[in-house]
């Protein structure tokens, strides 16, 4: 594993991170063990791995929602303690506020941070336009489609102009067509502000199409199995890039690394009977 020459320049850096949980039965469960990971500023990093290997856990550690049991987590060279400032998080499940209108949902971040209503609303309208939701300001989340809710969540995160954006399977609940449209839109928005991204997904195609770097995690407890640089030219169109030879070659290479882990996790989940 190559050590980065100047660790302080990494946007995100995990060193020897272990995360243990106390299970309800009183046992200790290790979700991550000795994980090392780094993401450069402005780098788009996709993380793939079998279910339950600790992908979501990694993101909660970076965001500061949870603390590592051992090891260090740094964002912008500073150790994480409490909620990391300058971080955006799109959760695996819907987390927009159902009692706030679309506009108020997007304006929530600036409002929480002390901006005036007028200024926050102005910025929120701007972001809603950018994610293609102009005209839906007054709706409540339950009146939107799943894809639209994801756009609201995206605008809600991006309005704070995070330097680090954490995305936990943000598009997994969407149909294939909507997902590829959202991928392209995400890339376009990302180019505008260029935050460092950790993008968790189960979809290897999506990972390769979006990322500069794909990290494959092992079946739990999670650690890095392999890292792949994706040197496909930008700007990319997720729809078109899938059929290039380079893409196909990368896909089979990464899938080779991922497959054995998925199989291990699957075998475990079918043989392991609750003690």
């Amino acid at each position, binding site marked *: 594993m190559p050590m980065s020459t100047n660790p302080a320049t990494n946007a995100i850096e995990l060193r020897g991170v272990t995360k243990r949980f106390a299970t309800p039965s009183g046992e200790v469960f290790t979700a991550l063990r000795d994980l090392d990971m780094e993401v450069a500023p402005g780098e788009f990093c996709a993380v793939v791995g079998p279910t339950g290997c600790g992908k979501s856990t990694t993101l909660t550690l970076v965001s500061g*929602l949870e603390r590592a049991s051992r090891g260090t987590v740094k964002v912008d060279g500073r150790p994480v303690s409490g*909620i990391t400032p300058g971080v955006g998080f799109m959760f695996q499940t819907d*987390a927009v506020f159902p*009692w706030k209108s679309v506009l108020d949902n997007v304006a*929530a971040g600036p409002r929480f941070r002390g901006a005036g209503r007028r200024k926050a609303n102005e910025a929120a309208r701007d972001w809603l336009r950018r994610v293609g939701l102009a005209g839906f300001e*007054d709706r409540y989340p339950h009146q939107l489609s799943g894809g639209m809710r994801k756009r609201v969540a995206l605008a809600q995160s991006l309005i*704070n102009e995070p330097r680090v954006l954490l995305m936990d399977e943000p598009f997994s609940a969407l149909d294939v067509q909507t997902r590829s449209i959202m991928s392209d839109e995400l890339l376009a928005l990302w180019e505008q502000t260029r935050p460092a991204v950790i993008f968790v997904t189960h979809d290897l195609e999506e990972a390769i199409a979006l990322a500069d770097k794909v990290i494959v995690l092992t079946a739990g407890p999670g650690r890095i199995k392999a890292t792949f640089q994706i040197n496909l030219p930008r700007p990319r169109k997720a729809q078109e890039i899938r059929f290039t030879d380079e893409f196909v070659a990368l896909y089979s290479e990464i899938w080779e690394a991922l497959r054995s882990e998925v199989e291990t996790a699957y075998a475990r989940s079918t043989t392991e009977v609750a003690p």
Partner: protein
Amino acid sequence: MTRAREAADTPRIDPAAMENLELDEPRPPRISRRVRRRLVLYVCRIALVVIVLGGWEIGVNTKHIDPFFWGQPSGVWRQLKTWITDGTAQGSLAEQILVTLQEAVYGFVIGVVLGVVLGIALGRNRFLSDLLSPFIKVANSIPRIVLGSLFSIAFGFGITSKVVLAVVLVFFGVFFNAFQGTREVDRNLLSNARILGASRWQTTRQVVLPSAFTWILASLHVSFGFALIGAVVGELLGADKGMGLLIRNAQNNFSPNGVLAGMVIIGVIALIAEGLITALENRLLRWRPPQTGGGDVNI
């Protein structure tokens, strides 16, 4: 708003239209069938009331029911008319209603505020809830209505003793709902608020409170009933005005019709309050998807 609603409505396929396509059945009969069902329901309800009250009245007239103990509907009606036109022995009827209403509303408001504040505070603060929960459990298990006697001694015949009793009755229902509602707040939403930069107080106000509101509002329906019970029982135990005193005087005069007439008035007040609370609920919970099925059953 209207534009948004239009946009929402246009692309939707009308399920009724689909059914019509399949069944090849004209639409009007379906609609009128639904209307007719409702009509039949209302007629049956009225019939039920007529049968019960009429049976009662006939029972009295045929000497099967003794009106000296059980009263009779026409007597209750006469009593109500007298109260309305001639006033009661203790002043005008409106005055009695207003006094009781005032006690109930004060008790309701204070009890709800205390219940919500304490419920959320304990729901948000582990130490507070660990500290206070055994005391609250004990306080909840005693028959609180008996405290009315104590308050009557301590606060006298005025409005205070009734308000305090109403507060005590209202508080617990609201408190437990607010507490539970606070505990059930989606952890994802809490995390999201923290990430977006919300302080603890902002999270409580903008995430916990609206989220717990569904629970709290559910408790308000029963709570106003409790507040009325507190006010009336407080008056029964000793007062110089109010519906409770009116009922108590009727009892002392061996007038079952008077007792029943008082009950009818209190029932009407409770129904109006229930309607107002439902309207409030619909306004405050606009953000929720429309509830299917169910109905407004609350006991």
